[in-house]
């Protein structure tokens, strides 16, 4: 059901881990639905993503999209990173089964949440960046909606 690219990124995920004193961290998803993604960004003084790491709780597609998304934003400016869409991640993976499209959306949201965290910490505004949706750190866990 998965492409060779997806299997490759699942079996050999790139950029797994944490970044200490990261420039920005974003965690999105919901354990109830079975997917949580956390992305760490190290952003240099020129606003270029020097490094990105991830941790993901989820299915094969969730892990593969996290891996691909981090791969795609490293070396990009924050503005360019913002423009890496879920569609681009999916295309880079050679496609995902329809039921797994939400995994790629989660990867996009995780990158945005990490950028938002970076912007907040540095008191800057990233043009076009909206407040994170689906951010578990911002959610009241007892008040989760069904």
């Amino acid at each position, binding site marked *: 059901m998965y492409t060779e690219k997806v299997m490759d990124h*699942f*079996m050999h*995920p790139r950029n*797994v881990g*944490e970044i200490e004193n990261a420039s920005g961290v974003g*965690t999105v998803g919901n*354990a*109830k*639905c*079975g*997917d*949580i*993604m*956390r992305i760490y960004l190290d952003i240099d003084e020129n606003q270029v993503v020097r490094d990105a790491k991830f*941790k*993901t*709780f*989820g*299915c*094969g*597609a*969730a*892990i593969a999209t996290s891996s691909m998304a981090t791969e795609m934003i490293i070396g990009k400016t924050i503005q360019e990173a913002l423009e890496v869409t879920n569609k681009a991640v999916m295309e880079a993976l050679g496609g995902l089964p329809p*039921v*797994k499209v939400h995994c790629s959306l989660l990867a996009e949201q995780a990158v945005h949440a990490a950028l938002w965290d970076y912007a907040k910490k540095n008191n800057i505004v990233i043009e076009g960046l909206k407040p994170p949706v689906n951010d578990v750190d911002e959610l009241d866990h007892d008040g989760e909606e069904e």
Partner: protein
Amino acid sequence: MIYLDNAATTRLSETAFEAMRPYMMDQFANPAGTYSFAAGAAAAVEKAREQLAAVIGAKSSEIFFTSGGTESDNWALKGVMQANAAKGKHLITSAIEHHAILHSAEALKKQGYDVTILPVDGDGTVDLDALEKAIRPDTVLISVMAANNEIGTLEPLERIGEIAHAHGVLFHTDAVQAFCHVPLDVERMHIDLLSASGHKFHGPKGVGLLYVRKGVKIAPFMDGGAQEKKRRAGTTNVPGIVGMAAAATEAAAHMDEIAKKEIAVRDHLIERIEKEIPHAKLNGHRTQRLPGNVNFCFRFIEGESMLMLLDDSGVCASSGSACTSGSLDPSHVLLAIGLPHEIAHGSLRLTLSEETTLADADYVVDTLKGIIERLRSMSPLYEDFVRHGGR
């Protein structure tokens, strides 16, 4: 390859295969034919009916052949409720039934029937007090499975049957996982209807049966020809039926011996997993359990990724995670035994056959340890757990 998904399907036994062969080749006749060429096929079907009836202490005239467990379950519920509508429209079943039962009950509800879903305890055993209280004057049928397909828990059929009959209510059991794996007796257990499926005990796919106690009113489910005493139309699946009976006869003759062998491997798996993998929880009843079923939840990880890595190591297993259930929710069985969603997503089911060895079990545990460690090292839930001092 180590195949540990025998609850999904089993390998066809050599004996069953050999028994089927002539009815696909030389004796291909439709048993409904009037010529003498059809007599051999017709006789084989009747012999199969006797063999299968013997497994559960029924009469051969009470066995009706179907296309499998799903049809048998659909037929039992819809056929009995429809035929007994004069008595009432109330059906009782349990929260952990197979979808063939739960979705049939849903369909009946849409047609104006009333359905009570019984809760189960943490082991997956049906609450008998709730059952007793749920029975009403208009209750027609109680349907509770013999053994659960995910967590392996064996239900107290004899007690359920007693309660049903004390109240004049019919009792159906979905015995798809139990038939030929644990002893079943329709008299002792007061069973009025029982579903079974050939491919769960080394018979062929696409064939099953419904036992219907003599005198029980049931409407036909398939309309058409006069096969199965006008109760189930459709050309008789002669090779399937003969193969199912051969597999059943073989399995029933060695039931105790096979169960002992499987239980030894099952308990070895359970013991090693509990001892060697932290944050693992056994699902289902510890002793009142199918001989070949092992089901665990591993915290902080998700089932599908576990299955993919097991597959990469040559192990076929299954999970009740959302990703494998095709919806956003994990298995209804794991939720019914009280597991929170995030834990239910990390379930693993290993179902054995008599071919599974202790060495297979050791390989699986050794492999699984590495897989779980690897997935936890990637899990933000585990990271948070460790950060918060392992709480």
